[in-house]
């Protein structure tokens, strides 16, 4: 037996399906998509096979608007180099992976070229619409979902002459208002001159630029000046002479001490000994005779001398 109860948050038909987008934003999007369709790198990036297309944007004469047969339509596509793109779309027809299969989205395929025509009721609609991948649109009613499928700019668009001529009146220009859209002017670009390389190399910029620092000084390891003589000299040039003087003085001291010790350790010769003894005696004599010792009289007998 299955478990009871209802699902969490049962899906309702009154889910908010629609979204409001500002008119200006919608127009901005369409206008950007049209602009992107004329840049070969963006069109190729979107995946269209435009290697054999002679020029971007691709414009064909109005005689194409009166094509009635699909076979001639294909021939025209081959002539203008748009057939590889349509071929790609035909080859890519496949069954969708995933549950979308059983939810009425069984087949998927790539998008081919979009043909935009100018005059109302042109016959080419019927001729081109059965070609797999190819879509048709009137220039007065361009659909963003077709110009930028999946949200990716750069659909491969084939314009007819009258379609391209009408674009100016539909969307206006940067100064002139559009005739069809009340008060609408094409959006201004963020940068008028987007060529960064040119700006950087311009006179105005290069004249105030500072020279490149080629040799960057990085912090080196700190060495102890008390141990490393060279580093000490860098800080205190007098250190060398000071150290030299100290060494010399030390050597001098060592030498003189050694001499003194040697002299003391050498056995004293007879003459020197006699001289030292005599000097001692004489000094004693002078000491007792020069003494101003007050009680000398008491001790004359003991000392055995007289003043």
């Amino acid at each position, binding site marked *: 037996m299955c478990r009871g109860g209802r699902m969490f948050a049962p899906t309702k038909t009154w889910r908010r399906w629609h979204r409001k987008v500002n008119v200006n934003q919608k127009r901005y999007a369409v206008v950007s998509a049209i602009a992107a369709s004329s840049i070969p790198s963006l069109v190729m990036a979107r995946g269209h096979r435009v290697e054999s297309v002679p020029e971007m944007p691709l414009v064909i004469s109005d005689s194409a608007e009166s094509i009635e047969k699909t076979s001639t339509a294909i021939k025209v596509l081959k002539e203008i180099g748009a057939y590889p793109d349509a071929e790609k779309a035909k080859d890519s027809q496949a069954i969708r992976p995933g549950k979308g299969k059983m939810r009425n989205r069984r087949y998927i395929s790539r998008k081919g070229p979009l043909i935009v025509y100018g005059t109302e009721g042109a016959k080419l609609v019927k001729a081109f619409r059965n070609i797999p991948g190819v879509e048709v649109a009137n220039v007065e009613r361009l659909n963003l979902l077709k110009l930028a499928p999946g949200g990716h700019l750069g659909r491969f668009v084939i314009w007819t002459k009258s379609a391209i001529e009408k674009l100016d009146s539909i969307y206006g220009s940067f100064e002139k208002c559009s005739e069809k859209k009340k008060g609408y002017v094409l959006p201004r670009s963020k940068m008028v001159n987007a060529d960064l390389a040119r700006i950087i190399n*311009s006179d105005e910029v290069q004249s105030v630029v500072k020279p490149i620092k080629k040799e960057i000084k990085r912090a080196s390891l700190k060495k102890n000046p008390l141990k490393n003589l060279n580093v000490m000299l860098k800080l205190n040039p007098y250190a060398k002479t000071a150290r030299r003087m100290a060494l010399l003085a030390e050597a001098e001291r060592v030498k003189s001490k050694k001499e003194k010790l040697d002299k003391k350790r050498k056995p004293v010769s007879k003459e020197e000994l006699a001289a030292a003894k005599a000097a001692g005696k004489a000094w004693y004599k002078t000491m007792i005779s020069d003494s101003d010792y007050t009680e000398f009289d008491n001790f004359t007998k003991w000392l055995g001398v007289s003043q």
Partner: protein
Amino acid sequence: MGGEEVKVAVPESVLKKQKRNEEWALAKKEENLALKKKNAENRKLIYNRAKQYAKEYDEEQKELIRLKREARLKGGFYVNPEAKLLFIIRIRGINAMHPKTRSILQLLRLRQIFNGVFLKVNKATVNMLHRVEPYVTFGYPNLKSVRELIYKRGFGKLHQQRIPLTDNSIVEQGLGKHGIICTEDLIHEIITVGPHFKEANNFLWPFQLKAPLGGLKKKRNHYVEGGDAGNREDFINELIRRMN
């Protein structure tokens, strides 16, 4: 700038860049020459100053000895003049501290254990030290201590950065406007508490010393009780030898 087709077909932008690079190279060369000359002059000046200071220190020492001997001869005593310079080392950590003593230690720039700073002696500083006695040990450093501290662990404060004193140019950058252009000048200013002692001392980042080899006696007690805190006058030098 686009390619102006000259006979050699060198684009104008390249020519302009070449000319500008030459100008820069010339200016740089001149600058280097001027710098070299200034350095050479400075070197001589520094040498002479260092010599003069060495003589001064020698004389001072000899004078002290002479005065002591004279006094002993006469039978009296020579009393050393009160020290003008102190070296303070923080010996306790950062936990569980009264906020007022904590701020005083911050004012003294002793924010870490075993940090050391020099300090001028006057009533204000002495009173400050009295408040933080249990957390620091201090004394009167001698010339050898000052020299070794500045040479081995001297770092200067330039643009709020701790820069090692590897070259006299760093000292000059920091204290040039007070006439102190080399480490010997700095040492002299610190030891003879000179007119710009405040700036010189502030230029020196607080010394980060290592924990003393051989250990402390007893942090919790005052020095006179057999511990380590407080004023230990001249014995600070022995501690500095062990911590430097």
